């Protein structure tokens, strides 16, 4: 899989950066319901509720984060998730 089809994810909490790197997909607890983002999604700026953000990185490792409310912005395969509070990786496991 080439770089162009990966998401560049940046997950930041109000007082520290939580995670950043490349991911194949992201699942986000958006205000209107859970939302999945794959590469080349349309640019979107949406609010998120408290819940879990799941990121699948290039090595198929799933990263799960507990977050409180915030928002995400996505454009040209750059995903920024900004949350009030984000707890670092909750579970990391292989998803195959």
């Amino acid at each position, binding site marked *: 899989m080439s770089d162009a089809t990966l998401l560049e994810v940046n997950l930041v909490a109000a*007082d520290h950066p939580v995670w950043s790197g490349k991911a194949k997909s992201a699942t986000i607890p958006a205000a209107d319901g859970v939302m999945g983002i794959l590469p080349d999604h349309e640019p979107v700026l949406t609010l998120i509720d408290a819940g879990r953000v799941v990121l699948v990185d290039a090595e198929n490792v799933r990263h799960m984060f507990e977050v409180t409310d915030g928002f995400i912005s996505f454009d040209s395969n750059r995903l920024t998730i900004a949350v009030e509070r984000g707890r670092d990786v909750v579970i990391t496991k292989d998803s195959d």
Partner: protein
Amino acid sequence: MASQLALKSRINSTTSLGKIFNAQEMIASSHIAKARTVALNAKPYTDAIFDAVQALAAHSDIDHPIMKAQDPNCKRAAVLALTADRGMAGAYTSSILRETEALLARLKQQGKQVDLYVYGRRGASYYRYRDRPLMQSWEGDSDHPGVDVAEAISKTLLDAYMRPTEEHGVGELYIVFTEFENMVVQRQRVLRMLPVELIRTNTADDSEGAIVGDSATDDPGEKEGVSALYAFEPSVDKVLDAILPKYIQSRIHECLLTAAASETASRQNAMHTATDNANNLIDDLTRKLNASRQAAITQELTEIIGSADALNKEEE
């Protein structure tokens, strides 16, 4: 000539004071590194919010109360002064108080009634001692401001701002804080936080740009392509309602962090000067002690020689 005993005890006490100042200076310099990391850690979030607000601003003419005063005739303003919790920071708190007083006078001249909010124990006790009314004060966090205190402050101030004028709502919010320029220079600044003036392009104007300036210098080309296409969910208004308060909160948090860094830096400077002064004083006192010891010896010698002379004369 002061007695040698008194001089010795003064030298001793000055030496131990000097040690304390030195320790304080070292503590302050270690805190600066910490303050810098905290500020760096908070930056990505601030940048993200700033970018989002920029995208929103480019998308629509924002007609939100946070961007525009609801009541242009509102004769009430809020002032938040960021002071220190502890002393020993040189003129840090007093310069902020002086700047605040000047601002209060200016606002009064414009016929505005001012609600005063204070952050930091020193500032709060200054106003309390003088029986000046404080709307609210926050104490105990001035050298390590967390997100919680920023949240509490921005919530209180936004509540006051959002209230209608009849219920003592305020029309403007000013923050007086100390900007951290470098280790030696910290400047007092007055920032009008509300209503927000948004910079649309990378030409950051002075009242807004200095803090968010770095993020505003992103290349404009990238922004143009992006902003028009954004889909806002659930809706533009809801996104605005959620993001603008966060923007204010992150701006306030940023001010708190800069103020904390400045406080630590001025404490370090003050303690450095105090250590130097203590050393000078010790040198002075040691010189006096030596002189006084010398004088005592001379006197003793004169007395011995005098009495020996007297004895010799008697024998003759």
